[in-house]
């Protein structure tokens, strides 16, 4: 397996979607190629950082306006 193939398979590798044979081949390459190993580990860290970071907050005023809009626009149900 060469570097180009490793790069195109990064997502499949991180998502656990490679066949055992391909996965083994890819990991063998990672053991021998420092650059690919770095790209794979940095890409994995990139996903983890976004997964864990709360980069968007729901501002209180936005939340209040949402509930006001729902109360004024939703029909009154049997339990309201």
């Amino acid at each position: 397996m060469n570097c180009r193939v490793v790069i195109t398979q990064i997502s499949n590798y991180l998502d656990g979607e490679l066949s055992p044979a391909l996965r083994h081949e890819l990991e063998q390459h990672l053991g021998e190629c420092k650059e690919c190993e770095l790209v794979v580990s940095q890409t994995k860290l990139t996903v983890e950082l976004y997964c864990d970071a709360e980069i968007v907050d729901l501002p209180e005023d936005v939340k209040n306006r949402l509930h006001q809009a729902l109360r004024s626009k939703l029909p009154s149900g049997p339990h309201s």
Partner: protein
Amino acid sequence: MKSGDCAPVFAEIGKSPDSREIALGCAILEAESSVGRWAHAAPFVSASNPHRLPSKIAKEDEHLLVAAAKKGDTSAFEELVSRYEKKIFRVTMNITRNQQDAEDAMQDAFLKAYAHLKDFSGDSRFYTWLVRIAANEALMRLRKRRPNVVSLDEPVDGEEDLLPREVEDWGPSPLDRFAQTEMRGILENAIDALAPDFRTVFVLRDIEELSTEETAKALNISVPAVKSRLLRARLKLREKLDRYFRQGGQN
């Protein structure tokens, strides 16, 4: 189970609880604390188990709320809104990267969800169904604002070389080197600079943790297109973060 335990839920939605609602409210509180524990126990994506699954307890009590909302119980619907508003705003904000558009998209998404609740069959997760509506509301606004940039329905997979140049060690974990607010700024800058068609797929797959198939369905594109865009989005984000994280670089 004391009714007093559930007071915050009903104080928030401004309704006086009857016994059925108390039971539902307590189930919600228990489900939420359970979700929190689960998320804390497994904070990272791993190659072998890339997607965290939602709590079974949350799934179990959710259908009660959906069923009540379908019958016209707006307080049950408001409870669903309260549960997902933060996540749905994150979806619309991450896609539009514009607060006004994100707010409008979120409001319309919830109103549309209520109007079309009868179409929710329960085959998929309620949250996935909601995200699909929200993503489309957000994309509609993004297309209005930047009509020439967003073309999710067209192929974007160019022939550009995906091989990164000049790969360098990031050194000690960036999490240890940057303060939380600084890290947040870096992540925002990088995702802002990502092309919307890549960003949208990344948001749904990696931030909202929809499956490839769910993402394809939500965006009305093929599974190979989702995979190809996700690969490019991840590689491009890595490249953008590289400027900040490479050893010695604090740019």
